[in-house]
């Protein structure tokens, strides 16, 4: 039987793996479970997708669940005043992109240090870095407001980038440390014995080997920043409003403007999905590169 030589298929490569009837049954059963899983993932999302094209009165009835007259009005409305989602998308990209570009290199260096070196207070420092994320946002958002007010940085995207960097750094460092741990020391050590500078070693050996981890951390950080709500709400006024604020704006006095929220929901989820698709290819490639040595 032919299978792609993909490390994820290691187990399936075993000859004679699928032979008996019970194996067939197990295969069928597992594929069934996968199918159910896909449905569970897709159901709410496809619902959202459909709702974006419904008129408000069709949203609240079961009868018009699948059968309704579609309209493009919602997708149009969300870009108009007062929702202005177009502006918010740009801000979201700027803030999330800026955060990841600045935070990932910092996190990689720090993760490398935690992984390769032993020094006093290492555990404590690591704990403190992570502990900064243990406190609920509701309590630190007002001190942040005061801080940025003093700095005159209210309603700026830079302020949001700084805040989001401080949110994602702990997780990024932690995730990456695990991946760097898995890269064998021998290669680095032999390169350094050969006279290579530590910085070169990191850049040319460790980073490529730990690339899945770096990408994982980057995607994670981007997502956290993209969906971050409370800080953007408090710090922003008109120039630094991001998509989550736009989304919540659809909860009005009249209730949830579901049709607009669904349209906005598509807008906020789609870019993330495409980015992660792009990244997945890279991710899988580097998994392969890493496994075959």
């Amino acid at each position, binding site marked *: 039987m032919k299978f792609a030589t993909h490390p994820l298929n290691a187990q399936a490569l075993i000859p004679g793996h699928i032979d008996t009837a019970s194996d067939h049954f197990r295969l069928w059963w597992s594929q069934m479970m996968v199918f159910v899983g896909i449905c569970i993932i897709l159901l709410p999302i496809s619902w959202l997708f459909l709702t974006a094209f419904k008129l408000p009165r069709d949203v609240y009835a079961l009868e018009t669940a699948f059968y309704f007259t579609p309209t493009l009005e919602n997708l149009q409305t969300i870009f108009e005043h*007062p929702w202005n989602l177009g502006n918010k998308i740009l801000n979201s990209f700027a803030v999330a992109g800026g955060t990841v570009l600045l935070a990932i290199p910092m996190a990689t260096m720090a993760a490398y240090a935690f992984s390769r070196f032993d020094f006093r207070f290492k555990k404590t420092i690591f704990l403190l870095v992570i502990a900064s994320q243990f406190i609920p946002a509701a309590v630190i958002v007002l001190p942040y*407001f005061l801080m940025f007010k003093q700095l005159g940085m209210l309603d700026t995207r830079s302020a949001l980038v700084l805040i989001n960097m401080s949110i994602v750094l702990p997780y990024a460092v932690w995730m990456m440390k695990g991946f760097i741990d898995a890269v064998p020391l021998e290669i680095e050590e032999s390169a350094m014995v050969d006279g290579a500078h530590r910085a070169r070693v990191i850049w040319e050996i460790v980073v490529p080997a730990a690339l899945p981890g770096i990408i994982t951390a980057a995607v994670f950080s981007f997502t956290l920043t993209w969906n971050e709500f409370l800080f953007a709400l408090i710090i922003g006024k008109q120039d630094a409003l991001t998509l989550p604020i736009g989304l919540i704006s659809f909860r009005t*006095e009249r209730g949830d403007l579901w049709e607009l929220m669904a349209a906005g929901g598509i807008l906020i989820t789609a870019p993330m999905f495409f980015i992660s698709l792009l990244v997945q290819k890279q991710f899988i490639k580097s998994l392969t590169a890493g496994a075959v040595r």
Partner: protein
Amino acid sequence: MKRRVILQATAAGLSSGIPSLAFSQGIGAVKPGKPYAGTELNLLTVVAPQFKAHEAKLTEFEALTGIKVKYQYVPFANTREKLTAELVGQSSQYDVLSAMDVWGPSLYNLFEPLNGMLAEKKIDMESRYPYAHLRASRDGNGQGKNILGFPIRGHVQLMFYRKDIFDKLGLKAPNTWDEMVEHGKLISSKTDLSGVAMYYGKTAGQNLMIWFNYLWGAGGDLLDAKGQPAFNSPAGIAATQAYIDVMLKHKAAPAASASFNETDAVNSVAQGKSAMVPVWWWRYASLVDPKVSTLKPEQVAFAPLPSMPGKLNTTYTNTWFYGINKNSKKKAAAMEFLTWLSNPEIERSVLLDKSMNEVVAMQTKNLIDADVNLRYNGMHVFGAQALKGAKGTPLFPQWPQVSDVLEASISELASGKTQVKATLDDAAARVRKVMRG
């Protein structure tokens, strides 16, 4: 037209107690000569058709005074956080702010007292606004002498019902809560609609809005004269029992009411699943707008809220006001803006605007206006009458916590798993604690 005559007569009757001279005195004017030209003001507000209509008129204001006003929209659900940040940070990100009475007077500390400026402009707030709305704009828990803002959006409750179903079954709008239950049971048995869409779910204190009417109608109250919980008195217990029995015992409300919030209940009627809903007057738009509702305007009628037998109709009111940020550096310009915006003519033009179904009217003059009442079938005259005896949101600092305790209790009771007396006694103990601290 006969109706017009009746409306005019009623309007005349209501206005006869107010000296007509006060109207011309009540209208302030902006300062001539554009002394604040070039100033930019930031206004914190939420998306509502009324405010969008105001925003559309801003170019007029700029032409008049040279002041540019920017409407900064914030999600309705999060306005409180913004106001809290502004208060704590003592910042002036916004020059004009809006606050709602149900959020509690703690946020009122953010607003600049307007009495001096009002006197300068010769604006007579008392003749302009009904007492209930003006009270919510004062400091000192509604009793103080400082006025902190211009009531800009406020509501009374009405009973909306399906006229066509009522006509078919020969019913008239219910006068008492018992009648509402009877009508509800009849409708459930003879049609496939539920009687009345109640809302007992826990969302921002919404399940207390009708409960208060039951409580006050039965002679009970939230707190007694000493500020201690009084809602678990025998009258309070009976009222609460009657309130939840609409669904639990009589099944005049659908079982889903236990988790409904206000919007769900209105949708239930708009989708033709229930025949009545007691709710704020502004929901009228959601019931007749063809994009949002399956009903036609002819099918939707309204009446004052039912009452307890032999007692007067009550209503609960709810008020938003626009005020000036204490920390703002542009207070005079902000006052110009508010003076202009609160001109009764602006409110009137929004009410008569055919492109919207905005019913919100704050000013007495507009409530009794003949054209407005013609458009909305006398809703505003009802509103004016109701406002006369209306009690508003309790205005003491611990109200948000008390509201949370009560709405949690009601939503628990609606699940049918607890007893009214025990739950209310428990709530009273917590409220006592809250009032102490």
